């Protein structure tokens, strides 16, 4: 079982990202869950989304998880959310930020004994450059593919194209570029 927790703001596409990831993973015969914890959340409110991935049908409906990966797609939430909540000694963190990894870790005490498991990527800037607006959900998945080694980049891109197929070609292309850049730039 792989468990992934997203830290996001409502409107940044974490739910779409989690469902997109689930859809790609399901094409490889695996079982998935993609869900979010939000109620009457308005755009900008902090929220969590979640993925579970396993070879067997997933029957655990507990919201809480002990994540293998924590994806922080809003830079400020790394400081204000409890991003290490319920973590494990092996949990890996992928955080969107414009700071260097060293600068970021020096400002977040909870990460200081986990430096070897922290990865950074500026998913906000990448999405601004490619998609033209702040939409860090797809680039963070590129970074996840690199850090986790879950799938190789070409396979993931091909399948994400299908997930995004209802969008105009220009938007699909921009997302592909964003995923590729994050894959290459995550440190």
């Amino acid at each position: 079982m792989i468990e992934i927790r997203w830290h996001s703001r409502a409107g940044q596409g974490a739910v779409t990202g989690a469902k997109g990831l689930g859809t790609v993973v399901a094409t490889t015969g695996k079982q998935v869950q993609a869900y979010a914890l939000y109620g009457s959340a308005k755009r900008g409110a902090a929220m969590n989304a979640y993925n579970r991935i396993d070879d067997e049908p997933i029957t655990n409906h507990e919201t809480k998880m002990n994540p293998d990966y924590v994806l922080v797609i809003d830079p400020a939430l790394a400081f204000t959310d409890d991003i290490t909540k319920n973590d494990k000694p092996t949990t890996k963190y992928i955080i969107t930020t414009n700071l260097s990894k060293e600068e970021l870790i020096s400002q977040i005490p909870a990460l200081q004994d986990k430096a070897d498991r922290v990865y950074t990527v500026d998913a906000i800037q990448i999405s601004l450059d490619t998609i033209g607006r702040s939409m860090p959900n797809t680039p963070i998945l590129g970074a996840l593919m690199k850090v986790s080694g879950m799938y190789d980049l070409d396979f993931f891109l091909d399948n994400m194209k299908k997930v995004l197929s209802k969008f105009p070609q220009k938007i699909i292309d921009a997302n592909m570029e964003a995923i590729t850049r994050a894959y290459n730039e995550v440190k």
Partner: protein
Amino acid sequence: MAKKFELNEVEVWDGNYATSQALRQAQVDVVAAYPITPSTPIVEGYGAYKANGYVDGEFVMVESEHGAMSGCVGAAAAGGRVATATSSQGFALMTEVLYQASGMRLPIVLCVVNRSLASPLNVRGDHSDMYLGRDSGWINIDAFNAQEAYDLPLCAFKIGEHLDVRLPVMVHQDGFTTSHKAQNVRPLQDEVAYKFVGDYVPVDDMLDFSRPVTHGAQTEEDWHFEHKAKQHKALMDSTKVIDEVFKKFKDLTGREYKRVETYYMDDAEVAIVALGSSVETATLAAKQLREEEGIKAGVVAPRVFRPFPYDLIRDALDKESLKAVCCMDKSAPGGAMGALFNEVSAAAYTTQSRPMITNYIYGLGGRDFSIDEAKRIFKEQKAHADAGHITTPIQQFSGVRGPKLGFFETKRGN
């Protein structure tokens, strides 16, 4: 003619979307709906199918849930296949009309995405709305995950519209936990799903002008009781058709549904009885406890909540090995034991083994139900079994902050 919808063998759908696809495939004649969280995406999805040519029927936007169910009653009496969806306060507002629908024997399908009832206002999942409607004369079927939120509405049309039944059917799923959680779902292709549901057969439809009928009649003490008795008999007798439809669905898909689902019950010493997604979490906890600690835990779940399966619950609990059972109610009991406790106890009273039965109120307003908590409750049942008597108050609260609550004591073991 409605367009065919391209579907993959495996889709990643949440419960709401799965249900909306089932309604589309059943080619409902009229959906009259008023949106409410967390069921909104069902009718939103249906509206999109209508706008994009995937549905031939009518989509009627109304001013309230009372209007929605009234529209459904009118359309069903006129002679069409009818469905809608709601939750919580919307369900409460429909309640008056729910009794009209069942009394008029109109096979409407209502997809209920379970959510708590105010006050305090809360949009998350518990079974307050399901319990509010339990005496309204509808067949109640419960889905535990997204796949079932797709499968069971298809079965619901076939059950409710059957000429030996002709009753409305609710299909419940847990708000957010099921309705907003995307999982692997294996849909049927459109023509296969429609063929399973079958063409709608009108009975005493108002639009058959060659044979005028009265709907919504008034009867006082002279006839009312006979109508209600017949209605109750139809509900109690619907079990035969429910079993047949579940059998046909299994033959078609390999997915098996029973009026009472049982997990690890063959040699169980302790059991949890629950509804909804918690059934799956509790079953996982039972599996882990068996592996980790050798505690023989099992789970019993009424798939069909109305007509209540007293016979099958009794069969599930009438085992020499079974010593202690916890009934878990996800609805504020309002000055009584939980409904599941009361009904399961009534069924268990007629068993030879008479297991000890306790009651937990849990999960109100969407409070998380964890594997660890399920294990703790199993272990508490084991303590009752080892002591030979109930070691706690009969009714307790799970996962609530503040002073520990407990009501009713007994000295009796069994």
